[in-house]
């Protein structure tokens, strides 16, 4: 990485006069706090060259200076060391940024700094990191609602003030702004951020200050929110190797299947699909990213509806394109909670309704076995692509987590038996409960 000089009018001679060196990886929002503060104060900061995250900060030399091995870290020109981004930003700031002369205003700056760390960052990380694939998705976490509470509080605050503390930009603005960067970049798409007009106004004002622009350069507000993609996380895990953080390991135990599948896939194909997904506007069919293949769902559905199973099931295996389509067995996880048959059927049809947009590229027969208070739900699903289809669209993610998904080998005899059984609504479940009702997703 080239030296990033903070002051725009820097001559090489001045580098030696720099008040210090900042160690960070690129585009680190924590480092931004320090760099923006330096823009306001005119402090000369050199960003360490050739810093490699995970290597440089684990080196003995680095650990000697900064025992925690964390970045951003700052080394002053006269050899003193500072860690923790807020402290570095404070050191590099000027009097105005620190809250002026009034102790109360200074305390307010501290208040907002703590607010950013304790209120904003946890919700921002919980929401955005899984989408970036650097943290597993937390089940049942109300990340959006949690974020809403914090954002609304800020929005309310900024209704009648221009800046968070006093009438000038302070570290309070810079720190809170930096903590919101990920949210505004990745998830607060226009329809979502419409609820936060005052916060938006303030955010855009701070963003467009020349001192902030000098540091952020190409920052853009979110046009379309990221959606969760299990592949990305699997890739991240593969990249980071065996040395994983605690939460990563948990995820491995929970979802070993998914990970294996992701690994099986060829990396080239993955990238293409990822790129296509990212490039395409949301309204398009998420399946468009997958190769089309030769299997025609409409034709099969017509045959299935009009002909006897004796004809339609052989037709299915004859036409099925194993390369571009996959067959899955989905088993309901909480069968013991099922009571009345009609309620269970509503559960299935409800899920079908919510998956409406999937119909074109998918087919399923979901069956209920057993009777009132003793029943199970399971189904055979077919869709385009080799991966679990549900993460492709946020609309499809409501129900799938309550099912266990098992990918079936289209060539095996066992699969043929299962497909025949489910498509023809016959047989029993594993524990011998008789077929009761079936629902077709087409």
């Amino acid at each position, binding site marked *: 990485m080239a030296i990033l000089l903070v002051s725009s009018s820097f001559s090489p001679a001045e580098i030696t006069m720099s008040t210090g060196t900042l160690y960070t990886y690129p585009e680190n929002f924590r480092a931004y706090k320090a760099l923006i503060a330096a823009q306001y104060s005119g402090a000369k900061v050199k960003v360490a060259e050739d810093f490699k995250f995970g290597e440089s900060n684990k080196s003995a030399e680095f650990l000697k200076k900064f025992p925690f091995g964390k970045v951003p870290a700052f080394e002053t020109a006269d050899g003193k060391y500072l860690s923790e981004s807020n402290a570095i930003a404070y050191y590099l700031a000027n009097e105005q940024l620190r809250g002026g002369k009034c102790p109360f205003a200074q305390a307010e700056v501290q208040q907002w700094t703590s607010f950013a760390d304790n209120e904003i960052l946890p919700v921002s990380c919980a929401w955005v990191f899984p989408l970036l694939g650097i943290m597993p998705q937390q089940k049942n976490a109300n990340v959006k609602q949690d974020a809403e509470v914090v954002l609304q509080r800020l929005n309310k605050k900024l209704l009648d003030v221009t800046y968070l503390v006093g009438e000038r930009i302070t570290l309070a603005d810079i720190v809170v702004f930096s903590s919101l960067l990920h949210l505004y970049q990745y998830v607060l798409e226009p329809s979502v951020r419409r609820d936060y007009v005052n916060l938006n106004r303030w955010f*855009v*004002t701070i963003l467009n*200050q020349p001192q902030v622009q000098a540091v952020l350069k190409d920052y853009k507000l979110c046009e379309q929110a990221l959606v969760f993609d299990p592949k990305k996380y699997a890739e991240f895990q593969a990249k980071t190797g065996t040395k994983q953080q605690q939460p990563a390991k948990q995820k491995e135990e929970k979802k070993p299947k998914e990970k294996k599948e992701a690994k099986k896939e060829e990396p080239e194909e993955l990238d293409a699909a990822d790129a296509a997904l990212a490039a395409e506007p949301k309204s398009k069919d998420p399946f468009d990213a997958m190769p089309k293949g030769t299997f025609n769902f409409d034709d099969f559905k017509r045959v299935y509806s009009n002909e006897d199973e004796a004809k339609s099931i052989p037709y299915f295996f004859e036409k099925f394109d194993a390369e571009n389509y996959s067959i899955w067995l989905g088993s309901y996880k909480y069968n013991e909670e099922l009571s009345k048959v009609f309620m269970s059927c509503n559960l299935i049809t409800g899920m079908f309704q919510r998956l409406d947009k999937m119909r074109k590229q998918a087919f399923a027969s979901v069956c209920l076995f057993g009777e009132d208070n003793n029943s199970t739900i399971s189904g055979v699903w077919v869709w385009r692509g080799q991966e679990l289809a549900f993460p492709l669209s946020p609309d499809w993610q409501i129900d799938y987590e309550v099912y266990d998904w098992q990918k079936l080998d289209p060539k095996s005899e066992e699969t043929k038996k299962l497909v025949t059984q489910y498509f023809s609504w016959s047989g029993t479940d594993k524990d011998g409960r008789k077929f009761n009702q079936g629902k077709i997703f087409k």
Partner: protein
Amino acid sequence: MCDVATVQKIANCLGVSPGKIQLNEEQVVTRTGAQNKTVAGFATILESMARESKSETAQNSIVTQEVQAQVYQWIEFAVLYVAPGSKDKYVSKQLLADFNKLFISKSYLVGHFITLADLAVYYAIGDLIKSLSPVDKENYLNLSRWFDHLQQRPEIHQGETMLNFTTIYLHNWATGTHI
């Protein structure tokens, strides 16, 4: 509003010597500055002062040609519409509503920093804002926020009594009025 007093106030804000400000025989405000050069007209005088000033506001106002043009537009607007309009009951209502709407999404009139445009409109609309009752101010929270932000700067209020906007904090417990 394009009177001698306002020009003097803005000169103070910018930290420049106002020179000799007076009305000529056509009642147009003129400024006779250094080297006895005289410029006439409110907007032109403001521009001439911005060039002399080293203040943040002045620097912001001439940062690019586009900004400069937008600032000029607002100065004209302040002179031609805001000042006379604020004396009319109906026009002033519209003005307040328009500015309030504008400040929903903006912190300042031009760009994202304080410029001469803010100063010109601030002084043009000051009397109107002063005449508002606390309840009226409640209806223009965004405008109030902007006005309050400016008046808190010592170089802008210049020792005059500050308008009280504290009642707008009412919304913290009377949220129903702020939909």
